[in-house]
Each structure stands twice: as C-alpha cells, then as structure tokens.
C-alpha cells in the first residue's frame, strides 16, 4: 500500500462496496471464511479457559464451591510448593544462561568459515522432541560410569588425578589386623628382626593385582622388619594367617611403618607379596597398609538422584534451546551495520570494548526477545522433566506443568487443584506474553 493512487482507488472501492446492495452478502461471505477458525477457537480455547477458571473454585469432585481453597493448596501442599520453588529456579537460571550462551555462540560463529556446520549441530536438538532429547540425556546421566557417558568422562578425569587403589575390595583374614582410617593396622607391635604376616581375604579373582605369584614368607633379618601381604585364601580351605601353597602374594600394596603414632617409613610389596624395612633402630614399631591401597574406584555421581535432578534436567534443557538463542541473536547480529563496528574499531576500541559497548547495546532488543520467550517456555516446561527424571524423583524435580498433569491425570483426578495450577501458570504467562505481543504489533 505505497502509492497515493492505490489509496484513492481503495477508498473509491470502499464507497462502491458501501453503495452495493449485496453488502450483507459480503459480510456473510467474510463470516463464512472465519467460521471454521472461530468455531475451533471457541470450543477448544475460549470455552476451556473460562471453564478452567470457574472449575478452579470448585472441589475436586466438582460438587462444592470452595472459594480459594484450591489456590491455598498451591502454597501449602509440599508437592506443589516444591513445584513452584523448582519453577522459580528454572526462571531464575535458564533464560539468562540460554541468552548468554546464545550470544557467545553467535559472536564466535561470526569468526569461522564453517559456522553453518556449527550452527546446525547446536540447532539440531530443537527440531527433535523435548521428550526424545530428555531420553538422550537420561542415557548420558546413568550413574554407572560403565554406562553413563557423563560419569565415564568424570571417571577418566578423576582417575588421572587419583588412581584407584590396587585392592578396592579386601578385608583382613585374622583379627590381629584391624581397620585404621581407610587402611589396616597390625594390632601387636613389631620389633626389628621379626617377620609380619598381613593376610587379606575377600578379594575376587579378578581383583588380584596383575603379576601376582605364589606368596613367600621372608626370612627374618637383624635390624629389619620383613613381611608379606598375601591373599590368605585357598580354595577348599587352608589356615588363616599362614602362607600356604597356592596362595598369591599381593604386589603393589603400600605398607607403612609407624613409631609412636608417626609414620617413619613406607614400602611397596613385590610380586610375591614381600616387603622389607631395613636399618631400623631398636624399638617398637607398628605395621599397617595405607588407605591408598583400598581407595575405591569412582562409583559415579547420581545425576538422576533426588538432589541433582533439577540441575541435570536444566542442563539438558539448555542443550536444546541454546541453538534457538544462537540463531535469533545471529540474525540480529547480521543486521548491525558493519560500518558501526568498523568505526568503533578504527577509533581504537579493543574487541572486548566493541562487544561490550557497541554490539551488546545494539542487540538489546533481540536479547530481550530471546529472554522473554525463554521465560514463557520455562514456565510451561513439561516433557523434558518427565523424560529425564525417573518416576521416583519426579516429586523432587517437579514443575508447575508436571504437577498439573500429575494431580489431574496421573492416578488421582484432582480437577479442582489441577485447574488452580493451570490458572496459576496462565496468570504468570500473561504479562510476559503481552510484552511479546506488543513487539509483534510493532513489527507487523
């Protein structure tokens, strides 16, 4: 509708239409075009909205008018309070993180030639259902480091820092050897010239350190404490505390020598289990096995447990939506005139200053759109929570939309409280969405 002639023509046309006797037929025609849409909107959106609001003031069975009792439930029942608290965490964390990550990705991809490949990789999760994405992450989060990729990665990092002990499962074979901290200590004290026997049992065949051979009892030497650490177990019996034929020495075990509660020496066993502390001054010593030997291997963080489930679901959700933020912000970025940025650079601005003082302020409208859209999405989040969180922790990871479904449709049919939750979501979404619509109308 640009030219003046068009405007003139259109007003002339309007006059023509007004004068026409078939005016009502034209209105009827317009109504005919609108009818299917109005019918669907009326039955499926307008009527249920009114109905849900009314329903929220009635008891769960629908028979009794209960004023605001259902809404009181929202803030008194533990389950619903957890849902509100979790949803508050979502709103506080997710929109800001998604927007920030999207901004970083959008700015960085401008600097590489293969940005399309990167954008496609990051954007892909958005095309997939949040439910399927949730399952994908549930697999990532499995607790056993032999199944869950995240814990497997953490194990690699952790094992690089602290190696698991050579004997993660073992217990003493005689009562003389007793637990001490994470390790074991021989209760009777020892003197130079003696031989000590540190027998261990409860070691599965695959738990025996590699290279172990038949255990050997050392011969006593003057001025030295000699000893053996061995697997004091022989199929079909044997005597505890005695090194016997067929029993393996345990190599690589850290043996510690203490005097008056202070560690004075430390040694590692050989492949036949022998160790020796030589050149000792006369006196009373105690022999033990260091805690390091029994250090447990990484058992996996329980991402799907009650305490970590909400952060775990949030990470998966950010994985989905970062691509959305990136693409929208990248489009905004490409609309910034290049010469503005060039001018800022030639004026001597560093990359960071240009980003902080020019790019971000110019992007502010786009950033706020992404942020607002994410707030709305997060208030209605459902699929991803139900997919990632096992049923046993769903009350810990509860959010409003999930709480609605669980109260009204999963087991108990509490339609009164369910309606109140729906209205609560609605009331939270309205002001935010109105902001968005104002922008729409400006753009339209």
């Amino acid at each position, binding site marked *: 509708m640009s030219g003046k002639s068009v405007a003139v023509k259109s007003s002339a046309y309007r006059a023509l239409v007004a004068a026409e006797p078939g005016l009502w037929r034209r209105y009827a025609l317009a109504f005919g075009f609108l009818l299917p849409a109005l019918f669907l909107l009326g039955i499926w959106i307008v009527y249920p909205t009114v109905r849900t609001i009314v329903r929220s003031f009635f008891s769960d069975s629908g028979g009794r008018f209960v004023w605001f009792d259902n809404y009181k439930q929202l803030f008194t029942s533990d389950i619903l309070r957890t849902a509100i608290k979790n949803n508050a965490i979502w709103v506080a964390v997710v929109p800001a993180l998604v927007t920030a990550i999207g901004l970083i990705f959008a700015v960085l991809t401008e600097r590489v030639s293969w940005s399309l490949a990167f954008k496609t990789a990051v954007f*892909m999760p958005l095309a997939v259902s949040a439910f399927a994405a949730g399952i994908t992450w549930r697999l990532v989060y499995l607790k056993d480091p032999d199944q869950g990729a995240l814990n497997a990665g953490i194990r690699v990092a952790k094992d690089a820092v602290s190696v698991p002990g050579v004997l993660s499962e073992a217990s003493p074979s005689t009562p003389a050897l007793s637990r001490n901290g994470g390790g074991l200590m021989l209760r009777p004290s020892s003197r130079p010239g003696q031989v000590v026997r540190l027998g261990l049992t409860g070691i599965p065949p695959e738990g025996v350190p590699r290279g172990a051979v038949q255990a050997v009892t050392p011969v006593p030497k003057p001025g030295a404490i000699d000893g053996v650490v061995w697997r004091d177990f022989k199929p079909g019996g044997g005597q505890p505390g005695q090194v016997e034929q067929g029993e393996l020495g345990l190599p690589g075990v850290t043996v510690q020598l203490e005097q008056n509660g202070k560690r004075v020496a430390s040694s590692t066993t050989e492949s036949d289990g022998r160790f020796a502390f030589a050149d000792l001054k006369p006196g009373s010593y105690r022999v033990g096995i260091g805690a390091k030997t029994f250090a447990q291997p990484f058992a996996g963080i329980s991402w799907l447990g009650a305490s970590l489930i909400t952060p775990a679901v949030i990470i998966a959700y950010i994985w989905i939506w970062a691509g959305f933020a990136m693409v929208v912000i990248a489009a905004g970025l490409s609309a910034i005139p290049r010469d503005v940025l060039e001018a800022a650079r030639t004026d001597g601005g560093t990359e960071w200053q240009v980003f902080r003082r020019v790019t971000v302020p110019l992007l502010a409208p786009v950033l706020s759109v992404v942020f607002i859209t994410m707030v709305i999405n997060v208030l209605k989040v459902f699929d991803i929570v139900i997919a990632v969180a096992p049923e046993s922790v769903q009350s810990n990871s509860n959010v409003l939309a999930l709480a609605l479904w669980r109260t009204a449709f999963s087991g108990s049919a509490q339609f009164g409280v369910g309606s109140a939750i729906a209205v609560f979501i609605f009331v939270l979404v309205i002001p935010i969405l109105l902001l968005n*619509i104002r922008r729409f109308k400006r753009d339209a």
Partner: protein
Amino acid sequence: MMATAAEVLTHKPALAEPRSRKIVRVLAKSPVQFALLVLGLLWLLPTFGLLITSLLSPVDFQVKGWWQVFSAPHKLTWSNYDAIFHNSTILHSLLTTGEIAIGATLLPIFVAALAAYAFAWLEFPGRDWLFILVIALLVVPLQMALIPIFSLYNTIGIYDTVIGLILFHTAFGLPFAVFFLRNFFIGIPRDLIEAARIDGASEIYIFVRVILPLGLPAIASLGIFQFLWTWNDLLVALTLARSTQPITVAIFSQLRTFGSNIEIIAPATFVSLIIPLAVFFAFQRYFVQGLLAGSIK
C-alpha cells in the same frame, strides 16, 4: 578482519606434515576455532551416544557404554531395529504419530488461511477487533484447556481418538497461524486482488488461485513448524488418549524400567527423532525464517 579458516587451510605448508599435526597446528593458532570445534562435538555427543546405544545388543550395553564400539566396532548390530520394526505396538504408534502430525498440519493451515484471508482482504465490521482477539488467544497456555477438554471428549466420545488429538492441536495452532498468514497475505499487492475482483472472480476463486499460490512460502514455513510441533507432542496425547499412542507416549510407557528396556527405548527414540531431523534438514531455510518471524509457543 581475521583470516578465515578456509584461507588458513588452503595455505600450503612448506614441509609435508601429517594431516593430524596440521589440524592441531591450525587449531592452536586460533583458539576460537578450537573452542567451537570442541563445543560442536560436545553438542553432538548425546545424540551420537543414543544412536550407538541403539545399535548395541542389550547384553553388550549392560557391560559397558556405547564408547566400547571404538575398540570393538563389530559389536554394532541391527538387531534392536529389527525387533522394533517387528514390534506391532511401536509400528502402530509410528503410524498414529504420522496421522496426527499430518492431520494437525494440514487442517490448521487451511482453516487459518481462510481466516487470514478474511482478516487481510475482506471488509466487515469489527475486523480489527476480532483479529486482535484471535491473537490475544496466544496467551492461553494449552494447560488451561486440558481438564475441560478431557471432560468434553469423554462426554462426546472422542476421547482416545486421532481426530480428537488433531482438533486440539489445530485449535492451539490457529492463533499463531492466523497471525502469521494474515501478515503475509497483507503484503500481496492489492492490485492483483482488485483486478481479479473487477474481472468478476469470486472470493473463493481469488483465495484458491491468487492467495494460496502467492502465500506458499509462508504456508511452507508454518507447515514445518506445525508438523514438528505435533510430531513431537507428548503432553496432549498423554492426557487426551490412552490406547491411541503416538511414538512419544509408546516410549513413555517403557520408561518405568529404563535400564532393562534400553534395547527398545534407544532405537524407538532414535526413530522418533529421525523424521523431524529429516524435515529440519530438508527445509532448514523455511524453518529458520519461521523461527525469526516470531517464536511464541
């Protein structure tokens, strides 16, 4: 401007060096490239893990995660896929998903296009008011409708039917679709429409022969969105149906025993996401256009 990766890569080094060393050298020069490469791979990793898991026998998976295939590629097997493609529940649910998604894409587009044409090009009293009212319905989250529609469907007997699900998705797709199409249609040159009117063409003829062909790009964008939205739905089907299960609900019902059902869950999930991905890759341009035009859902 800094040198692009292409320039760096095409620059021939004086000495021949192994490709891996060359990649490392190029990446070391550019931390941004390196960071993005790592992030991109990280982003692909969960989906890749799902794919490989779906190709492992349950026995192998119980022993070790999907990364075992790097040392033992022969463990990959189609047996899980073979099983789910002979599993009538899964097959049936895929068919149901297709029915719902196609129905709930075509119907709202048609209905919205009719309404959008009226809002853009027909004269009637209260037109602008009504249009604003329709857009205002965008604020209603679909959670508001679940309980009354559940009761309504049970009363009129379309609970647990494909048509019930299609109608629900259609209604909730309409406000955005009407808004989106009306804004597109209004950009169609007035002269084209008035010329047709003066030639005596009926409004229905104009709608079918002028508006729909010219509106095709917008309709395509909208169609892709609506298709993905309904294909990916879980909540509506979970609430308004029981035995009419789309694939998401079929997988959901296996979730209670996640660890022991992984040989069904992983391949079924991968199948459920391969179709949206294919749609996304085939129509990426429209997808991004639609996304930029307004992401409100």
